[in-house]
């Protein structure tokens, strides 16, 4: 529901800014001319407003999730782990086992931090940091795999 709310907000804001620009006769574009403040001041303001509103909606959604009534320590600190678990569906089957292993290792780290009486905010931030680095590692690995497969095809390009 929250993802739907965020997505709809983003679409409305971007569409709204483009609609208003079309009404007032300006073309919504990020060309070099559009960055000239004196000529495209209205366009730039509308686009910044739309993007800012969408980012604000996203931040408010995340904060609402974190502070909603009935949330326990587990639901908040597990949010990064749930994000990582959701990401496993975007990678190949061979690497999904590794994601499961990583999730288990992070759960052990979480248990250690809870034993050390760290605050839930600290635990959430540490897990978020580790999950972000893990996702970046797999994205980089995926890019490397694609590049290594594409490069041999370069020899078939016309010279």
């Amino acid at each position, binding site marked *: 529901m929250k993802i739907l709310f965020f997505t709809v907000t983003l679409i409305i804001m971007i569409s709204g800014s483009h609609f208003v620009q079309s009404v007032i006769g300006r073309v919504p574009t990020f060309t070099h001319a559009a960055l000239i403040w004196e000529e495209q001041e209205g366009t730039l303001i509308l686009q910044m407003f739309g993007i800012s509103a969408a980012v604000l909606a996203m931040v408010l959604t995340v904060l609402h999730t974190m502070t909603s009534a009935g949330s326990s320590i587990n639901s908040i600190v597990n949010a990064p782990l749930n994000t990582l678990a959701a990401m496993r569906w975007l990678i190949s089957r061979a690497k999904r086992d590794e994601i499961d292993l*990583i999730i288990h290792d992070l759960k052990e780290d979480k248990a250690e931090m809870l034993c050390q009486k760290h605050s839930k905010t600290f635990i959430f931030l540490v897990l978020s940091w*580790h999950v972000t680095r893990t996702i970046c590692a*797999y994205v980089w690995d995926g890019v490397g795999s694609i590049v290594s497969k594409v490069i041999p095809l370069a020899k078939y390009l016309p010279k």
Partner: protein
Amino acid sequence: MKVPSPTEFDLLSALGMREVSGRDLAKRYEEETGKSMSYGTLYTAMRRLKDGGWVTARDDEDGDRRVRYFKLSGAGATALPKLIKLQSDFALGEVVV
């Protein structure tokens, strides 16, 4: 066997001759190098080392969770001391390219 990258070389050095779980290997790497490594980087690097024949991997159950243990392969155990010696000779300037 493909020559390991500097990070992979540090992982092989931290691995030693014993069988180590992924989590323990990450801690050992941090203690020996002073640098932290995410589990994602560790498992992807160990996968590349396994594909290169440097290490073997074994999955086991520990209660309700799966654990992956890594160990230097026979070829890796033979090649690693030679690679360490080559790197130290290169650092000392005794190897001329």
